[in-house]
């Protein structure tokens, strides 16, 4: 039996020998299930590509993303040296797209760090402590849910000032309530289960129960939700950028690029079209991956939506 065969067998065992073994094993089985989902793997591939593009942007970009060349402005697709043409200031669109992937990833990752963690904290505390704390926290959550997301984000950006960081903050502020709801629901079911009582009898305090036993179980439903939300986050960030409230010029943020190209849409359509395709591709990739992850991690909802 070859080396890989035994590793595979070890990973696929029904009788894990240690906690780490069990965790690796279930992770591997999930991966196998995900791998059989072509569309999800397609989405994952795009995202890996996006990550690589962002990391190696300086090596991949054929031109300086900020260098203006007014003599060379609004070049069409496929022109010499500017594969995707140039914008109104003569900047190479392909290079701007490549650098723009950094901004997109930056926004997505930051929001994905802030919103679910905030939601997890609020939700688990509300669910675990219960009573008045629960009532107050959930009321606050409801208030934020009552706001239309984009309009609230607009108002926040208005208060905080335009810019990427503030856009991230504004989107996070509108994105956390659903996570809090999910985390609370999970906490309520976990809290009343027998093994939590058993741990409590052994003397574990609330902090330990929440961090060691409640959180790990909330994670999988949160991951699914985060992945599916990513597309929405990208679209919201692009929308803010489009309105001129996100990344500021000359930053090559994709939404801002569309906004800039909008003025020439009838004569020079590609300036606005190309960045839109980039946004579409990335959010599609997140949606595909999210669907696949949901099927693996949350089989009870599988295929219902």
């Amino acid at each position, binding site marked *: 039996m070859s080396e890989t065969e035994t590793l595979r067998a070890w990973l696929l065992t029904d009788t894990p020998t240690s906690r780490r073994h069990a965790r690796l094993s279930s992770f591997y089985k999930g991966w196998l299930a995900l791998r059989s989902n072509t569309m999800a793997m397609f989405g994952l591939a795009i995202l890996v590509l996006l990550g690589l593009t962002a990391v190696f942007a300086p090596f991949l970009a054929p031109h300086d993303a900020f260098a203006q060349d007014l003599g060379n402005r609004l070049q069409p697709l496929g022109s010499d040296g500017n594969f995707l043409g140039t914008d109104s200031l003569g900047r190479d669109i392909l290079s701007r797209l490549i650098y723009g992937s950094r901004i997109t990833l930056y926004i997505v990752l930051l929001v994905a760090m802030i919103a679910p963690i905030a939601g997890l904290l609020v939700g688990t505390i509300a669910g675990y402590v219960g009573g008045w704390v629960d009532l107050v926290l959930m*009321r*606050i959550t*409801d*208030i*934020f849910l*009552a*706001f*239309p*997301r*984009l*309009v*609230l984000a*607009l*108002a*926040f*950006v*208005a*208060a*905080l*000032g335009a810019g990427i960081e503030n856009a991230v903050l504004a989107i996070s502020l509108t994105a956390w309530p659903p996570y809090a709801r999910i985390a609370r629901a999970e906490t309520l079911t976990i809290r009343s289960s027998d093994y939590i009582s058993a741990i409590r009898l052994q003397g574990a305090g609330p902090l330990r129960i929440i961090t060691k036993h409640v959180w790990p179980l909330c994670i999988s439903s949160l991951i699914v939700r985060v992945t599916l939300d990513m*597309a*929405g986050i990208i*679209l919201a960030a*692009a*929308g803010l950028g*489009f*309105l*001129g*409230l996100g990344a500021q010029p000359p930053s090559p943020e994709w*939404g801002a690029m*569309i906004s800039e190209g*909008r003025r020439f*849409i*009838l004569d020079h*359509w590609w300036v*606005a*079209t190309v960045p*839109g395709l980039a*946004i*579409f591709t990335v*959010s*599609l990739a*997140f*949606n*595909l991956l999210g669907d696949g992850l949901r099927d693996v991690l949350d089989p009870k909802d599988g*295929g*219902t*939506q």
Partner: protein
Amino acid sequence: MALTEENREGRRRAPLAPWLKTTLMTVGSIAVTMLGLLFVTFVIGRVMPIDPVLAIVGERASQSTYQEVYEQLGLDKPLIVQFFYYLWDVIHGDFGMSLLNARPVSEDIARVFPATLELATLGVFAGIVLGVPLGVIAAVRRGSWIDQIARVVALVGYSMPIFWLGLMGLLVFYGILGWVGGPGRLDIFYVDIVPQRTGMILLDSALDGNWEVFRNAFSHIVLPASLLGYYSLAYISRMTRSFMLEQLSAEYITTARVKGMSERAVIWRHAFRNIRVQLITVIALSYANLLEGSVLTEIIFSWPGIGSYITTALLSADMNAVLGGTVVVGLIFILLNIFSDLLYKVFDPRSK
């Protein structure tokens, strides 16, 4: 002893009728949510890096004028008192003056709102008419080509930036094909011909019997409305499909088949009847989302609705207008939610 305790307790607090209790609870929670909404906007207004006094008196005003207006606006009072002033004003429909045109914000909103309402209503209508049947068929023929198409339609809808799709639509259908009217609600030539009754041009021109204006207005609204319709179609069809799948696997569906019903009757008379209530909620939600989604759409199509209004105000730092618009949209959100909850109670026999 325990018994008497209980009795005394009972006498002290007369038990409320259950329906009264639930009504009070609902009204209470709605009131709290609305208060919270106003509080958040109030806080945003206070955090804004714009000096409301300066905005009124101008840069060159004297210290005494500044102080006067400062006190007039109640800014010397504690925050909580200011909040109650704000609350008082909002309850009376007073969102302050717009700094841009020095008119009451409430008047501005009343003027621009019908444009948004017209657009969103047409959009959600298209979404329902196409999305519900598509979702039902996709669920009934799960895995068939039509299900695949429905899936792709929804996936694209969830992934496509709305403002970009709008631009592309404008490029293709207006710029290249010339099938539809361009940005705005009417061609210049037709503006102000029909008297304003509802503020919704399609309705106004129809009431006036002026079909030429109607046609022109329609050619302008058809593209943005289709765009919004597509997004609500994506959402509604997906939700319809998932609700239907749940019902179709229910046992009472087998009962209906055992009775010897045709498949069509099973689907529409039994399964669909069970998702109507859920659908109403989804449609209300989708309507609310369209009111919001219209922010970006309105910008693209130069549509003079509330979305354009908020954005323009934002870019020119017109705080009262931004907050007023936000509050109005937020309140509509809440009202739509209440509305769908109420419908739930009316239509679902189990909730009685």
